């Protein structure tokens, strides 16, 4: 029984990953990715990694996928199709992907994994929490804290990219204020020449 569930999940993951990278409609690709993420959490459930499966569902399927859909909706024209990839490019890419996959799959399949001697860890939230805040051996408090620095830096970086340049903001306040929100693309639809002339 378990075997069949695994095969079904694996088939879902394979088919939808393939569709994700081949679909030319970006919103569809995002939705296909959502199915891949959900099926992956199913595999975690099969392995009894309940906590990880829950995280996978809430953070990836719930959070990240929705985030991707939102950013797609905010940035691109929905009915716009992505450029058709030329046949030679598709063939070359497919060949490289196939060779790479073959190499890694063969390596992993023929490798003789030994069970380690460590006692089995109960993957409960309690154990995970202890490991997360432990500063001794096999403790993860340092990476846990460094990730917070990474998040801070990423937020500052996102602000930098989202911020309008000062000069555009000051001289152009009237245009931006009156045109918002009816013309959200007032800034982005400007050509480079227009922006350069404003900056001068």
């Amino acid at each position, binding site marked *: 029984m378990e075997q069949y569930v695994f095969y079904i999940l694996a088939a879902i993951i394979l088919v939808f990953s393939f569709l994700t990278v081949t679909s030319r409609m970006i919103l569809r690709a995002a939705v296909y990715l959502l199915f891949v993420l959900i099926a992956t959490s199913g595999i975690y459930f099969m392995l009894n990694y309940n906590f990880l499966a829950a995280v996978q569902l809430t953070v990836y399927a719930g959070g990240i996928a929705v985030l991707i859909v939102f950013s797609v909706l905010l940035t691109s024209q929905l009915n716009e199709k992505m450029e058709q990839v030329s046949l030679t490019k598709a063939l070359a890419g497919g060949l490289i992907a196939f060779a790479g996959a073959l190499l890694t799959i063969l*390596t992993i399949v023929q*490798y003789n994994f030994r069970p380690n001697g460590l006692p089995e860890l109960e993957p409960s939230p309690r154990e995970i929490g202890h490991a997360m805040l432990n500063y*001794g051996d096999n403790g993860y408090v*340092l990476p846990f804290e460094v990730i917070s620095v990474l998040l801070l830096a990423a937020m500052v970086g996102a602000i930098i990219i989202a911020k309008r*340049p*000062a000069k555009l903001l000051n001289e152009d306040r009237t245009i931006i204020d009156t045109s918002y929100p009816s013309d959200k693309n007032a800034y982005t639809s400007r050509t480079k020449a227009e922006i350069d002339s404003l900056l001068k």
Partner: protein
Amino acid sequence: MNLNSFLLMRHELILIAVVLLYLASEIIGGGKNKRFSLNFAVVLFLAVTIIGFLPISTGTMFGGMYQTSPAIILMKNILNAGAFIVFLQVVSWLKKEENDNRIMEFFILIVSTLIGMNYMISAGDFLMFYLGLELATIPMAALAAYQVYNLKSAEAGIKLLLLAALSSGIMLFGISMLYGASESLYFTDLIRTMEMNSMTVLALVFIFSGLAFKISIVPFHFWTADVYEGAPMSVTSYMSVISKASAAFVLMSLLFTVFAQLKEIWTPILYITSVLTMTLGNLFAIRQRNIKRFMAFSSIAQAGFIFLGIISGTQMGMSTVIYFLAIYIFSNLAVFGVAGAIYNQTGKELIDDYAGLYKTNPALTLVMTFGLFSLAGIPPIAGFFGKFFLFTAAMESGFLWLTVIAVLNTIISLYYYLLIVKAMYITPNESPIAFFRSDFYMKMGLILATIGILVIGFIGGIHHYIYNLSFGIL
């Protein structure tokens, strides 16, 4: 663990404090006073750089996740000093009106990447190593897209982000294979259990690819020229020196420790990529007209030389790599400093524009000449000793042909570095760039870079000092 052992992490702790202080100053001052923001950022970082050089003990923490050694601390100090010079050189550009509401963010992002590099250098397990690498890369993409209204800058940002994500993915896959093979991510465990089999070899190749992307080794270099050209001059300068030097150092220590057992696998890898990198970097550099693209290919070629020291596997090789990286940082900063000063003043960044620069701006020309001569390796400037020791290290380990190829490449590189020197001194130009004065910070930045080049070259004790700190494969 007590407070004393916690202070082993002083470099990172101070940098995190600096980020918070920068943020606080922005919140309190509202970023209104441009002059204050700039002075505060630079002076604070000067203090950080000086504190970094104070004596500090070494050891491991967090169950081995974090480790320091004298060589690691020296590398962190070199990175701090390089970042400080970048700060000095960036001030005149940040003063421009177009950057008005985004001054502090620049410093915050740069210091964040520096924190990442410090953790990456100090990592004692692959998790910290990977986190440090990401912390050094993601803010860098935001910095490359700093002038996001400029299409080239935006393109540089997205290119760097996408390709870095791809290379991180490949590297993570390699790390997970290593974990599968040896049940641990700690370097100490891996060193103990590492043995040669197809799994670990594939892991080595994947992890090497991830780092080779950061150092822009051929064939992982395709992003370099475009990103360097699109990013603002100071970001390019920072990326080409600090980012590259830290990744090269980490690659070296990983190969010498974790992958020491696989030496016979990574020696040919390094051999081939080194030859490709030196040769292709040099050949493409000759064709470039834009100074940033030119420096991109020049920095690719320089990365090939670094491999000469790593491939030797000896203590001499390792100390020379650190020595060479220090020289490379100062030389590149001298060249980029002058290019940045000229760009800020005139908006010109083509090599042809530099014609006749000697007549109008002799001081800038001199600094640029020092930098270029050092990169080319002309005696008695520091770059010569760096290359000379690298060649010696490779020769001692029996890599005769590699050294011959490297020497030939040095000659090619001499040609194109001298093309710029020729343009500045000899090529006649009816309308050369007019004389201009740089501000105090820019002057200091250029002077410090020049002093760095000269001092490292002329004081013989420095190489000896590094030699005593470093280790090789025994």
